[in-house]
């Protein structure tokens, strides 16, 4: 075929099954076009064919014959839409950005042909309907497109809201899936077809194309075993990995790996798994100890009985709590509420899949990996494989949300294969693998009992939560109750119910959203039963002064004051709900920022990575506070730099910000008032100063220190419910965040809006579905695992309460988790306010709402 590609002629003979995206990325080498869902759902791969946006992952490459194709690279980098994206902060991780940009360019160019002024929000959203942003940056994306259409950026360069924005909007930012090394092979994982079995694995016979050695003597294909032991415990569990010259050859080779299964009795559904007589999945102490964990760091200790692992009760006057609750139940006390809440598993499904490119050489291992934990991956790889040296690279990371914290299957397979074959190997998860076996927020079943009094506080609470994380332990939900609502008597217990399903992993605010789903609805219900204002009741119960400030501001909002009071009638009903959250404050206290003056510019380096939070910009801004006119270059994403933080536990900003300020101060001291150029070649190392009055836990674990104080959030959410179709639309959300001083207001607001969007997904759409018999994950594509889109995004207002963190250097802490924890609960409370139906099960699907609503 012949076509015009980004302005130049191209020829290529595609195979019948080749997609346009394949050819563009691998043959034409234009990796700005991203593939995320592979099913035409997310739009990341959108290209312009004769000016029309099309999804290239479903477009047969042969259909490009005779066309003019423009990808994000062909748009240039200076289109008004790109300028607007750069200045309006219309991105976070940036993986979806090329697709949004190409679509928006087509819309912009078409719209301006026959319009003046600004297109409406709805017009823009309609055009962007086929695009998903997992970070949830829709608000800024729509704003950027509208401003570009209005001509705001016709004649001027943008002021970048974040350092890497120009590279991301032009498709020039390199993600791990874009890395291609000379001689690189492609790896594929062989996975279990059964939920529970004893397996024997035979390496495949090599054919000519996949013979172990080519004529030149270089291996062109290979096999490694991944399964430790001989028992698989879930469908989709990695057993082996193979690599070959192309992905297609690798898949072919994977088919030829012989796995003999001796089926073992299995149980997938948690309700079945906890019954007496259910097949026991971890039979002895050794197997129990080796079970994977979904906890960040060490999980809680527990006792096993069958498939149930029970934690020890976390209680404060636990016996008094239970006595009060029993008595209140017996006398039907007005402030007593008991209910069982459930939540579905939530998949992270970052749009860049888990991916690694490993290059094992005699002098050491270079590992490109899509990770949130570059320093951790380096240490773990060094420990596991002990190569002469380890270099870990993650220039840009297309989202993580907690799923990319360790040596995941892609890393292990790529390293083992590269070590075996002596060639670089890439392993990237398909979307089905990503949605099956890269972790998820465990599903839960929570038994809540609460007794409240209108003025005297929370009299007693008990919460017993079973986590459903497949074969993994470590769900921790109930225990978070130690941090909320004063010091009244309380009894909390967490359990894991093990089933033959894939393991869970940490997910943004682990345990927080399911905790809030139960407890924050409990508070709302008690307020309702006592005839109290839910915000005033929380203010009475809640000892946290930062959150109390948020309640006071929220109480004055028209959104809250004008909430519907009485049970409503009519088809469409409006409701407003409130929910609160808190989250621990953590920092990587060993963070170092190195500043070097090179060619008159200040180069800042640290071994961290940007998963979309804007950490580069936090560092640059901190240096600019001291050197306002300096040209500052920020280099992250490389493990050779001084130690930097893992992007997890909301720790990054409060770690790098103070360290960067310290470094800038040291450089300024060195210069003593002279211009930056006078220190050419000089390097200084900034450290993170200690908190005043120490930390909450006096020791660090893996560089992480839990500091004093809790970050807070309050969400006020408005919904409109179509009570005949069961459809819930979130229309407005106010998010109050108490995390102290804000380092980068634009990026912080963007992230808080994304936290709301993800929370709406958790509340209304996202549902991990596992077949109860076979353990196959059925929600294995983005059509069946539904993420919120631009039309599901409400009008959002973010308020930052910045007082109360004077003991922390820089005066502010992280907010990436606290900003999402209470969102789903606020949606639940709003639905109750609208309909009188208390939703107990997440997500609030139309059928559940219609079933549960009072008639």
């Amino acid at each position, binding site marked *: 075929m012949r076509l015009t590609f980004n302005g130049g002629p191209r020829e290529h003979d595609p195979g019948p099954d080749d997609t346009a995206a394949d050819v563009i990325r691998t043959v034409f080498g234009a990796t700005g076009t991203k593939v995320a869902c592979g099913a*035409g*759902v997310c739009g990341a791969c959108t290209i312009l064919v004769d000016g029309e946006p099309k999804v290239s992952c*479903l477009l047969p490459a042969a259909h490009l014959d005779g066309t003019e194709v423009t990808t994000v690279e062909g748009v240039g980098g200076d289109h008004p839409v790109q300028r607007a994206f750069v200045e309006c902060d219309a991105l976070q991780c940036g993986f979806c950005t090329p697709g949004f940009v190409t679509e928006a360019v087509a819309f912009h160019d078409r719209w301006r042909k026959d319009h003046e002024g600004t297109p409406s929000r709805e017009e823009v959203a309609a055009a962007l309907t*086929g695009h998903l942003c997992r970070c949830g940056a829709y608000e800024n994306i729509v704003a950027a497109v509208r401003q570009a259409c209005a001509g705001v950026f016709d004649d001027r360069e943008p002021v970048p809201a974040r350092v890497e924005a120009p590279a991301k909007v032009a498709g020039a930012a390199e993600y791990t899936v874009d890395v291609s090394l000379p001689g690189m092979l492609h790896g594929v994982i062989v996975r279990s077809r059964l939920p529970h079995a004893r397996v024997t694995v035979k390496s495949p016979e090599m054919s000519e194309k996949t013979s172990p050695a080519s004529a030149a003597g270089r291996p062109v294909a290979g096999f490694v075993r991944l399964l430790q032991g001989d028992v698989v415990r879930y469908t989709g569990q990695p057993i082996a990995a193979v690599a070959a010259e192309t992905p297609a050859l690798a898949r072919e080779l994977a088919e030829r790996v012989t796995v003999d299964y001796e089926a073992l009795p299995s149980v997938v559904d948690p309700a079945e798994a906890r019954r007496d007589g259910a097949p026991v999945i971890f039979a002895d102490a050794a197997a129990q100890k080796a079970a994977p964990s979904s906890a960040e760091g060490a999980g809680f200790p527990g006792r096993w009985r069958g498939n149930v692992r029970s934690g020890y009760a976390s209680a404060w006057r636990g016996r008094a709590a239970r006595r009060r609750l029993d008595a209140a139940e017996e006398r039907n006390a007005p402030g007593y509420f008991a209910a069982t809440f459930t939540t579905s598993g939530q998949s992270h499904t970052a749009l860049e899949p888990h991916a690694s490119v490993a290059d094992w050489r005699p002098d050491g291992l270079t590992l490109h990996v899509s990770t949130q934990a570059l320093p951790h991956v380096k240490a773990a790889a060094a420990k596991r494989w002990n190569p002469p040296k380890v270099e870990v690279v993650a220039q840009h990371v297309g989202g993580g949300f907690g799923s990319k914290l360790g040596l995941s299957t892609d890393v292990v397979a790529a390293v083992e294969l590269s070590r075996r074959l002596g060639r670089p190997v890439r392993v990237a998860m398909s979307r089905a693998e990503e949605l099956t076996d890269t972790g998820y927020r465990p599903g839960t079943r929570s038994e809540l009992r609460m007794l409240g009094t209108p003025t005297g506080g929370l009299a007693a609470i008990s919460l017993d939560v079973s986590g459903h994380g497949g074969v993994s332990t470590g769900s921790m939900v109930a225990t978070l109750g130690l941090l909320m609502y004063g010091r009244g008597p309380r009894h909390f217990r967490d359990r894991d119910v093990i089933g033959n399903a894939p393991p869970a992993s940490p997910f943004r605010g682990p345990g927080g959203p399911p905790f809030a789903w139960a407890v924050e609805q409990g508070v709302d219900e008690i307020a309702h039963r006592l005839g109290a204002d839910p915000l005033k009741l929380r203010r009475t119960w809640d000892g946290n002064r930062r959150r109390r400030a948020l309640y006071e501001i929220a109480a004055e909002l028209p959104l809250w004051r004008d909430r519907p009071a009485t049970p409503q009638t009519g088809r469409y009903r409006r409701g407003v709900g409130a929910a609160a959250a808190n989250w621990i404050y953590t920092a990587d206290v060993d963070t170092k920022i190195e500043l070097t003056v090179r060619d008159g510019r200040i180069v800042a380096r640290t071994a961290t990575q940007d998963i979309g939070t804007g950490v580069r910009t936090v560092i640059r801004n901190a240096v600019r506070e001291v050197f306002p006119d300096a040209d500052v270059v920020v280099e992250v994403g490389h493990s050779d730099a001084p130690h930097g933080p893992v992007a997890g536990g909301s720790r990054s900003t409060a770690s790098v910000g103070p360290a960067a300020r310290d470094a800038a101060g040291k450089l300024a001291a060195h210069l003593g008032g002279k211009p930056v150029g006078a220190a050419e070649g000089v390097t200084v190392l900034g450290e993170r100063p200690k908190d005043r009055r120490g930390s909450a836990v006096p020791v660090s674990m893996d560089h992480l220190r839990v500091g004093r104080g809790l970050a807070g959030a309050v969400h006020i959410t408005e919904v409109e419910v179509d009570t005949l179709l069961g459809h819930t639309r979130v229309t407005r959300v106010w998010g109050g965040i108490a995390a102290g001083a804000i380092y980068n207001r634009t990026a912080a607001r963007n992230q808080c809006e994304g936290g709301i969007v993800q929370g709406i997904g958790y509340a209304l759409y996202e549902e991990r579905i596992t*077949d109860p018999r076979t353990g196959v994950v*059925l929600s294995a594509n983005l059509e*069946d695992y539904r993420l919120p889109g631009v039309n599901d995004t409400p009008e959002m207002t973010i308020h930052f309460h910045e007082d109360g963190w004077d003991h922390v250097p820089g005066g502010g802490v992280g907010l990436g988790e606290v900003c999402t924890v209470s969102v789903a609960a606020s949606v639940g409370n709003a639905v109750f306010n609208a309909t009188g139906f208390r939703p107990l099960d997440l*997500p609030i699907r139309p059928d559940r709402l219609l079933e549960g609503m009072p008639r």
Partner: protein
Amino acid sequence: MTEYRAGGTDLMERRASGRSTGPIVDLRDRGLRSIETTEEGGLRIGAMVTVDTLATDPALSAAYPALALTAGALATPQIRRAATLGGVLLQRTRCRYYRNEHYECLKTGGEGCPARGNPGERAVVLDVGPCVAPHPSSVAMALLTYDAVAEIEDGPRRPVAGLYGDGARDHLLDPSDLLTAVVLPPPIDGERAGYKRATGRASAEWPLAEAVAHLTVRDGVIVRAGVAVGGVAAVPLRLPGVEAALTGHAPSEELFARAARLDWTPAFPETAYKIPVTATLIGDVLAQAR
């Protein structure tokens, strides 16, 4: 088994998942992209005309508004630009078991229906068996209300309704049959239409249930009504009973509510909610079409 490829929006996903493995005959250079007026005064729409064109072509939307509204509401703008009329009529089921490589079922050449034991809330509410996944074609549903006819290369024409059977197959054409065009009878002046789908999200989602209607009113009386629903059965479903209840009467909210009553028996408790939802949708689209 050879398969034809039109826009590729369904087939390419099945190629990637391994569900389709036979040779492909690509139709890109076969033309079939024209929209012509027939001798009777209707339209012949080529099978390769895109869904986007169905939704936006001015002549077509003026003549057959129920078709245009339906086409404009499905999938996403990018999919509508690539997907074709022939493709959306003959697309394969979206059943999450069929789309999952771990399963075989009667539609993959195997036996039985793994979804029947775990239907979920998206399954059919009317069980015409043996498949429990709703038929995916919204456009087929709209065409039923116009008594549209499909043209098959080297074969007899057949009504669009005759493309579908009992749910054992997604369509009844042989793999070698090529659908070349759909012919619509002459349009009726003054027809008005409505379309709506029930979904979880605001857009870009397969419907839990959907409905389309068109009404022609003369002298205050409905002289012609077309009503069909989707998302409820393994075939697209026209509702002649609803149409009959409307025809000959003056349009009113009461009439619509009466006509939209459905005396269905739910196939599964999980999908019983679809009955009132479908009735609501019928009422809504009739109100739009008034």
